[in-house]
């Protein structure tokens, strides 16, 4: 049994820019030995239907998927809808290890930035190790969390967690900041009750041990 588990491997689809996964899969699966595998979908945006197809190919080859990685959020939402464990993968150029090295000090510009376009709806959760920039809204019931800063180019009405590994200097910026709950590092705050002023981008930071909200600074990355 132990042998089987230690044999767990990662099978990656080709990058979306290079080759279609539909063509690549037969070739990939011929080489694969049966057992438990992780599936890395890279930059493919896959629907539930696509994923089901891929999973059935894998099953025919005797492969059981225990984890799905991807750097596209839609794919992860599809995967978790199918009941799979998922991990968000950072961009090819930035390794998560390089981020951990400067985790103790301030987040620097070198830290990886995850960019996501589209609204997060109730029940969806966007997670990243570094900074995250979302173009769209975070609806009530949705969650966005990151090891670095959370930036929302839209309305933040769900929950947000910045600096989830303990970075007290992380901040949360949004065009309209009306969250249900805010977390920075280990601090938790409820969102403001009153409606925010229109047309005023705001940010949440930790000041003397408390989360405060103030008009956003021009440079979002400290």
């Amino acid at each position: 049994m132990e042998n089987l588990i230690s044999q767990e491997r990662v099978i990656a689809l080709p990058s979306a820019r290079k080759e279609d996964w539909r063509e690549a899969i037969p070739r990939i699966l011929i080489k694969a030995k049966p057992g438990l595998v992780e599936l890395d979908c890279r930059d493919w945006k896959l629907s539930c239907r696509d994923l089901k197809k891929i999973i059935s190919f894998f099953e025919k080859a005797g492969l059981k998927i225990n984890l799905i990685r991807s750097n596209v959020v839609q794919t992860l939402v599809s995967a978790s809808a199918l009941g799979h464990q998922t991990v968000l993968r950072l961009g090819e150029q930035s390794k998560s290890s390089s981020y951990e090295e400067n985790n103790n000090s301030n987040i620097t510009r070198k830290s990886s930035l995850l960019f996501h376009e589209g609204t997060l709806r109730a029940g969806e959760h966007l997670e990243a190790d570094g900074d995250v920039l979302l173009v769209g809204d975070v609806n009530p019931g949705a969650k966005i969390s990151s090891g670095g800063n959370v930036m929302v180019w839209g309305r933040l009405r769900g929950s947000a967690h910045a600096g989830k590994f303990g970075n007290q200097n992380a901040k949360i910026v949004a065009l309209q900041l009306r969250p249900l709950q805010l977390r920075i590092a280990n601090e938790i705050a409820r969102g403001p009750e009153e409606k925010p002023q229109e047309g005023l981008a705001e940010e949440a930071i930790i000041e003397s041990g408390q989360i405060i909200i103030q008009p956003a600074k021009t440079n979002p990355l400290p």
Partner: protein
Amino acid sequence: MSTNTRIILICSGKGGVGKTTLTANLGIALARTGVRTAVLDADFGLRNLDLLLGLENRIVYTAQEVLEESCRLDQALVKHKQEPNLALLPAGNPRMLEWLKPDDMQRIVSMLSDQFDYVLIDCPAGVEDGFKNAVSASKEAIVVTNPEVSAVRDADRVIGLLNTNGINPVQLVLNRVRPKMIASQEMLSVDDVTDILALPLLGLVLEDEQVIVSTNRGVPLTLSGINSPAARCYSNIASRLQGEEVPLIDPAKEGSGMRDKFRRLMQTKIF
């Protein structure tokens, strides 16, 4: 499989917001315009589309027998007496939940789409297997919600799932709108809801006591010929679904008295 058939899922996430009522009324309203319409009850656990249409006592076979191939599709279809363009494919017994797979659902729907122009699927509440089966067979969707925080939250979740399943277009129907309560800011306004859900609004349905009466009688409002506010709303939705441009009702302009409401509705030209 005919490609022109519109296969529309009617779903909401939350229960009790009016999926089945909308399915029944929309089915009748579409059939009245002359298109061949099928309504499929995909709520196998708690079926009651047959009740609302007043067809409960005429069911002989169900979708279950069709899938088991112990009867033909046209034997199971229950034609509506007054509206022959409308047919119901009833849900089988609740045990179907245990074995029904998305493939089965797709088989039924593809059979229906050979014979009909519109297939309306009444989706069960929730986002579990029953929902997934229904989604797998649909092309487009109508999300029904009420102007309530919990219904909107569930609708939002459902819309996210519809998007990942490639359902397009997804349109919104806001049901049980009470103009008075919106005016006094006790109820979410239409803008509040569309602001969060960010979907094209297919229609509003005003709160109407006649809906309860018609449900109990098993005669859908759109059929009974009563000039009720909700019946108008349902007919408008059917027209918009077929591409006609019908202006939306403005809840702020809805008079408080019933007579006032009627007069205004009589004046609106619909066809």
